[in-house]
């Protein structure tokens, strides 16, 4: 069992949904970013997604795009991102960590080298936004062969006919994108989300986490009632942005800005009845 499988099994036994937090590696700088990463589990993050910054994040909204720009301008690279994971793993062998991003930086780093280094650093899974199942042999299959979970996005446009294609080779969990849109956009409708999660669960035993547009503890609680996990990203990187000084540098409040929000979200989720009972 992967760390992700173990964590979702544990969440099931606690009869609650998990909080999946997204921050961008290197935002606003490598040192602060590592401090945030290390503080996330204690604040209530059950699964950590870490964004690999990319210059052209086509599926992301302004908040995550700006987070990526902050990271890149502070000198973040793929090697530094993998090193961050390694340093996080030194102190935490339990919390699943998923790298999320776009294909080109991996392609340029070298697919085999990236996968080897990711496994060695302690990465548990990958979410690569612009690799559809039609291109599985390119990254997904080699990743799965090395024991990494390859987590696929399912969306409102993924109809029942296409869903098996998307679920094939997917492991760890399914990431349901709750809206047609970019990250951090309109809030999802909990009823529609519940119906969609049920639709996916009819086709797979994997846990389903829901993201895109979840910003507050209340929204997180509403989604948690229907899903196995709630992903929050834009709100967290916006909290980072709001804590920076006029020159864009991290201040004493930066780490706390993130962990306070994570605590709030985690409390919301833990207060929600879990309706999915997977």
């Amino acid at each position, binding site marked *: 069992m992967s760390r992700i499988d173990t964590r979702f099994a544990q969440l099931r036994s606690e009869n609650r949904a998990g909080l999946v937090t997204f921050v961008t590696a290197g935002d606003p700088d490598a040192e602060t970013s590592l401090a945030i990463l290390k503080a996330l589990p204690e604040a209530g993050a059950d699964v950590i997604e870490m964004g690999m910054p990319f210059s052209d994040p086509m599926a992301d909204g302004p908040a995550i795009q700006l987070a990526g720009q902050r990271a890149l301008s502070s000198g973040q690279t793929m090697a530094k991102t993998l090193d961050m994971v390694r340093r996080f793993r030194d102190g935490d062998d339990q919390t699943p960590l998923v790298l999320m991003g776009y294909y080109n930086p991996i392609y340029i780093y070298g697919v085999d080298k990236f996968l080897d280094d990711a496994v060695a650093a302690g990465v548990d899974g990958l979410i690569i936004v612009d690799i*559809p199942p039609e291109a599985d042999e390119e990254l997904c299959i080699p990743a799965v062969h090395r024991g990494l979970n390859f987590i696929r996005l399912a969306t409102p446009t993924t109809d029942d006919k296409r869903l098996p294609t998307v679920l094939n080779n997917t492991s760890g969990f399914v990431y349901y994108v709750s809206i047609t849109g970019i990250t951090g956009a309109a809030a999802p409708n909990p009823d529609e989300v519940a119906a969609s999660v049920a639709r996916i669960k009819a086709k797979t035993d994997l846990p389903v986490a829901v993201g895109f547009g979840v910003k507050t503890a209340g929204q997180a609680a509403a989604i948690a009632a229907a899903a196995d996990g709630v992903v929050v990203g834009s709100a967290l990187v916006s909290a980072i942005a709001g804590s920076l000084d006029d020159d864009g540098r991290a201040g004493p409040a930066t780490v706390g800005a993130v962990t306070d929000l994570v605590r709030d979200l985690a409390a919301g989720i833990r207060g929600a009845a879990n309706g999915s009972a997977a």
Partner: protein
Amino acid sequence: MSQPVDPNSFRTGPDEAGHFGIFGGRYVAETLMPLILDLEKAYNDAKADPAFAAELTELNARYTGRPSPLYFAERLTEHLGGAKIYFKRDELNHTGSHKINNCLGQILLARRMGKTRIIAETGAGQHGVAAATVAARFGLPCVVYMGRTDVERQSPNVFRMRLLGAEIVPVTAGAGTLKDAMNEALRDWVTNVSDTYYLIGTAAGPHPYPELVRDFQSVIGNETKEQIVAAEGRLPDLIVACVGGGSNAIGLFHPFLDDSDVAIVGVEAGGEGLQGDQHCASLSAGRPGVLHGNRTYLLQDGDGQILEGHSISAGLDYPGIGPEHSWLKEIGRVEYVPATDEEAMEAFQMITRFEGIIPALEPAHAFAEVIKRAPKMDPDQIIVMNLCGRGDKDVFTVGKVLGVEL
């Protein structure tokens, strides 16, 4: 990733998954994947429907003014003292460039798919104007994404688009140029999947865009073939076009790919020279990567971050290139060379003074290569260059370079 291998033809690509060799493909978010597959099906249906081709041919003739003339540039030929130089006059098209060829084809496809809203990206504004034009002609609302930098340097085209009823959205992300506009158009499409058609402006993006844009632009090469045979009784020795995303070039080149006696050259924006990073020569100075839905040559750093290109010509200011061009470079069928801003400016002035044609700065890059090659060729040899756009939009840029306040 198997290219249908036909050693006798360079014209069989892409394969079913949209690959030209290792290039092309469909690297898009899952939200868009079903749309891309729908588009592919709709395009295949349209190709099989004679009524679709008939309507497009009629619009090309009556609305755009096709065929565009093939013009013997007599004075330039005499001045350069070598091969005979012909211009394919796509700058005479309605809206002033080759972009209308693609827009008419795609708007017919959008209508066929029942889409009610058009979005487009634009760099120089030529594609935006053409997209706004066909949207007006077919009565559909149109949103054009344009980088903030380009909005500033192409203000006449911005006003044209507004006159045509399009909404212009300036994009401030990144350096505010074409690639950022394309990101923003993709974000719109991801958000408005049910009613919106993304009318992409160049032969790039996820499959089937590179194929369908090429097909709609191939009217350029098909006409050229007939016209040069009528004028000279044979095919040219060399054909030349500028490449930004590469749609005018692939439109001219594709019908000639299997004519092995025809040399083919694509001219990239060399900007301030390839020694630094102030250029947009993705084929000459980039390397393969994945962006905007396809694998192709890209300007990027060692960590896979996409670089902002630079060119005096906003229409060539794109750090990628259509995937079929990447393949044609790799297999060696087409040669790709850069022309600098300075060379393009010289070429611009030469065409203007000797032929009384003010070209766009984009085809001025192509002519910069003609200036180098024509004198080394024999007088009985023939060059055809695609004069793909007119220069009205560029007079302010040129004025600035020449130190003239307009």
